[in-house]
């Protein structure tokens, strides 16, 4: 048994931690949020230069041959600074499908750009009525001469506004909630009939809505086999869950530590707040929620990386626990900071907002409990 990072992983972790410390204080972050495109192109370039964007790709694809554990190390550090760059959208999700389902030509055409940061991918799988289920796909691929045409909507496409191409799920057979019959395609953002409307989310990140108006999908666009796209889609979403769970663990660490520090500074009734037992015990519970989250994060990430039989169940358990813990840690960090906690001036509220968005993504807390128990 070994929970230590390898020497290489430790080096990466240290360098990301330094990057976040140097560049991601609240004021700098909010300045980036306030300007299009909502992230720093300079930082994005730095990330590619430092090799971070290639971490989870195979060496033969031009990557560093890492796995979910390497992504976890990175995302946990990102969570401490609420990093804005589209790593999750392009590398973990879009790239996650492409590396699994793409053929050599498709990978060659896109992965190099993803890894050097010159191209961005985004994953379009959520629909207006898909709820929390990734297999709930109504967008229908109507048969056409050389493939399909798509008419409909995809929503909450992370960083879609700046994406060069979209990985899109659509239905080629079966009923709306069947896992089989889902097909994946890689569609360039400038394809005729495709329009993208970007918008900000409460956490300062970017999302988008995609409208398909008779968008042509050719055989060359199809990723993997027709009707059998769910496996790669689900695997990329599982990677996404592991990634945001690691980010949430980083954010929770900031929240509980900021709270402990604040209660030692702030005096009321002639005592630092940290003298009050009711607050001490609450902070102990916040700390325990954080530790528990970290444990299950390690467990689920290693299980998935090892391709274990119990991987899917671990992912469901993790997303549930992270949601529950985030809620507790976030609410109590804000509460314990009092009025200051609900202002834009202190960072606790911003971390809490990010946790709320994570809770709602990739299936919420209740959904994953239900799947775990099923």
């Amino acid at each position, binding site marked *: 048994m070994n929970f230590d990072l390898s020497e290489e992983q430790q080096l990466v972790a240290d360098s990301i931690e330094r990057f976040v410390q140097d560049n991601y204080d609240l004021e700098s972050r909010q300045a980036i949020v306030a300007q299009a495109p909502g992230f720093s192109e300079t930082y994005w370039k730095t990330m590619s230069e430092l090799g971070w964007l290639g971490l989870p790709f195979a060496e033969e694809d031009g990557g560093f041959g890492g796995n979910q554990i390497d992504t976890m190390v990175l995302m946990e550090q990102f969570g401490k600074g609420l990093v804005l760059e589209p790593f999750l959208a392009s590398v973990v999700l879009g790239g996650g499908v492409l590396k699994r389902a793409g053929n050599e030509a498709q990978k060659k055409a896109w992965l190099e750009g993803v890894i050097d940061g010159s191209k961005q991918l985004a994953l379009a799988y*959520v629909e*207006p*009525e898909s*709820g*929390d289920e990734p297999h709930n796909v109504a967008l229908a691929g109507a048969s056409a001469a050389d493939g399909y045409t798509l008419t409909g*909507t995809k*929503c*909450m496409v992370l960083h879609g506004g700046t994406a060069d191409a979209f990985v899109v799920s659509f239905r080629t057979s079966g009923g709306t*909630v069947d896992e089989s019959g889902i097909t994946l395609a890689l569609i360039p953002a400038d394809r005729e009939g495709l329009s993208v*409307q*970007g*918008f*900000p*989310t*409460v*956490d300062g990140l970017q*999302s988008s*809505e995609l409208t398909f108006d008779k968008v042509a999908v050719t055989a060359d666009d199809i990723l993997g086999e027709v009707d059998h796209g769910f496996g790669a889609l689900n695997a990329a979403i599982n990677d996404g869950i592991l990634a945001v769970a690691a980010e949430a663990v980083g954010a929770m660490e900031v929240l509980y530590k900021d709270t402990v520090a604040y209660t030692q500074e702030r*005096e*009321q*009734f002639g*005592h630092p707040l940290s*003298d*009050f037992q*009711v*607050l001490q015990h609450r902070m102990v519970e916040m700390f325990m929620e954080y530790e528990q989250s970290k444990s299950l994060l390690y467990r689920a990430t290693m299980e998935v990386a090892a391709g274990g039989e119990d991987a899917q169940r671990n992912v469901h358990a993790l997303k549930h626990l992270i949601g529950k813990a985030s809620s507790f840690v976030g*609410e109590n960090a*804000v*509460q314990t900071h*009092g*009025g200051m*906690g*609900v*202002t*834009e*001036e202190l960072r606790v*509220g911003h971390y*809490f*907002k990010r946790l*709320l*968005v994570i809770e*709602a*993504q990739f299936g*919420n807390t*209740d959904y994953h*409990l*239900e799947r775990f128990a099923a």
Partner: protein
Amino acid sequence: MDIELSSEDLEFEKEVRAFLTENAYKLGEDPNEWRMGWFEKAREKGGWDVPKWPEKFGGPGWTPNQHYIWQKETAAASKPWDLPFGLSMLAPVLMAYGTEEQQQRFLPDIRARKVNWCQGYSEPGAGSDLASLKTKAELSEDGTHYVVNGTKIWTTMAHIADWIFCLTRTSDDGIKQEGITFLLFPMKQEGIEVKPIITLGGSHTVNTVFFQDVKVPVENRIGEEGKGWTYAKGLLEHERTGIAGISNSIVALEELKAKARSVKRGNGSLMDVPSFKAKVAALEIDLMAVEYTELRSLATASAGTAPGPESSILKLKGTEIQQRIQKLTMEAGGQFSAAWGGTNAGPDFARGGMAGYMSSRVYTIYGGASEVQKDIVTKKVLGIKPGKK
């Protein structure tokens, strides 16, 4: 013990409903004219514009049942906006401790909704520990006015308020609750600066207010110098009861159910999903109980007196329930609740769902944080006197 409404009560309920229907906002009406007209008509009904004021001051002198009926009916009805600061918080203080001259000077404009008030209580160093406030009021040598210097924070609506009622320190002698003086003064004058605080929901309701050499005539002091804490305490209890917002939550819960029913899940709606349905049901049960906790307190409190320490229980449970409603509304909106403008994706109600939930976090902080309310219950209700800390 009986919860039946008498035939008089039922008659009253009908009358209230008729009034609310008749005076509901009609499309195209000038909102401000409608608002002023509404209060005028309510006044003509015999004090319906100031339901909680004692009869002596023009209130309707309702029974607890009538108050309950009014609250229930108005929560869901089209009713003009109102701020509690003058009407429900300052007015009872003026009635109990103000001079007749002060009552005549301030109450009519409060009643007519002509003057908006804000509350100068919290300070950067005095939140939960309100009595440690430091904003200084010094009596001028000739004894005609005070000179006020200091900073107030979390001042709701200070940016639109005409007047402020303000706790100031006139003496540092004795325990901190002594030496506090209750002053009233206009907001639009030299020496007052209002700086907005933007909260996590993205909205501007609270402010920081700076006073520099603000002159306040002594006739604007309520009661005696140094006794302001006594007057302020009762006011806080009124604030707490208002913050509990129970009748609004009853309406909001029904809205939540309707929203959840509009969200498709499988062949049914989100309200058919067992985990969600169970949370809504548990919320409803708590709300049913707190509704009666409020009624029990309503039945014992005679109009015009401060509600007492039970108001802490209402504040604790009431705000927790409001937050749970916001949380479930956010959950019902799913991922779409995360949008921050710029999209029409998802159900209409979802947009701003997360911002609404973020805004609701302040409910357990303002008006005395939940931790402080629990201390009040510990001391004043359970009678536990803490030893030395």
